[in-house]
């Protein structure tokens, strides 16, 4: 590459791809669209089946409690559907907008993830402490809160505590990892946005 000629570099860059490469792209795209269509269909069919089952339950059982639970479940399905649709639309707007807008939204999302992870990291040890207090209150006596409420034996409570600590440990590791990664991502996104702003500001 002897000289710097942007037009020549452009021609080099845009060289026609191999027919095999074109075919590979076509197949990859067909696979993606097929999967996306299937996922859409599965979502719709799943929602219809669950809703129909819930309605069927109410026709069999007219109790006010059942009707209340079914109504709540249907509202939850509707809420999830609307929320997912809004999230998808926001994602599309973000991708088809300008890079700076996309970076702003990505930064916002990374900040939310960090806040959520920080909350989870605090709440898991707090939950363990609460559980330990509940176990230790009246332990070994008939007045134990857990024993009285859940009719559990001492052994079951002990195994439950071990399991809980294990799960909490795994969750904490997962949350800590996501927290650290989102901090790295956030730092990178903020630096990139600053770089874009600097480029823009310097030319004004």
């Amino acid at each position: 590459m002897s000289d710097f000629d942007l037009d020549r570099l452009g021609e080099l860059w845009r060289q026609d791809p191999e027919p095999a490469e074109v075919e590979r792209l076509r197949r990859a795209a067909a696979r993606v669209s097929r999967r996306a269509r299937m996922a859409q269909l599965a979502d719709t069919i799943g929602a219809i089946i669950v809703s129909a089952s819930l309605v069927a339950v109410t026709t069999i059982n007219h109790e006010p409690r059942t009707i209340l639970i079914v109504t709540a479940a249907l509202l939850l399905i509707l809420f999830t559907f609307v929320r997912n649709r809004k999230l998808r639309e926001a994602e599309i707007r973000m991708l088809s907008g300008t890079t700076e807008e996309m970076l702003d939204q990505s930064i916002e999302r990374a900040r939310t993830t960090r806040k959520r992870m920080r909350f989870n990291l605090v709440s898991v040890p707090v939950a363990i402490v609460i559980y330990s207090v509940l176990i230790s209150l009246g332990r070994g006596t008939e007045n134990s809160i857990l024993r009285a409420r859940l009719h559990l034996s001492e052994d079951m409570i002990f195994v439950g505590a071990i399991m809980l600590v294990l799960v909490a440990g795994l969750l904490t590791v997962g949350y800590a990892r996501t927290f650290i990664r989102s901090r790295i991502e956030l730092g990178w996104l903020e630096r990139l946005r600053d770089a874009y702003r600097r480029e823009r500001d310097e030319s004004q």
Partner: protein
Amino acid sequence: MTSDAKPGNRRAVASFEQVIAEHGPLISRIAMSYEADPALREDLMQQIFLAVWQALPRFRADSSLRTFIARIAQNRSISYVAKQVRQPPVAELDERIEADDPDPEQTAMEASDRRMLLEATRKLPLPQRQVIVLVLEGFDYSEIAEMLDIAPNALALRLSRAKATLKTLLERGR
């Protein structure tokens, strides 16, 4: 609708398959300028395809379809790179750019030049890389300024910096 479709033309949008047949190589080159590892690039390409598939029904022909696709591909690539900085670095694999050409010497030289250009492009800072890739793709300056939502003088400044950096990188790579 083809890439020469004019903005404002609200004819029926082409099917996803037609769009990929026409703009697939553009998407592939943009993905290539952001991800060197072929396996990860395949993942990025699929993410871009999915984004295009989802966004296509919302295309309102305010700009050309090619501009719309390039913008989605660039934005998806940048958000992909942001996600990648969270992961441990992956060893870069050797990239093979080959062409079935009757003149193997010429082909080898072109492949080598192309590889060098690609590697230099990947080393550019993202704001500069974005603008150079669009210029190399043959977009005119008004389209690029509109795509990046920047004033023509801001584009000129960014482009001149990008050219200078690219030139240095290419000379260093020689």
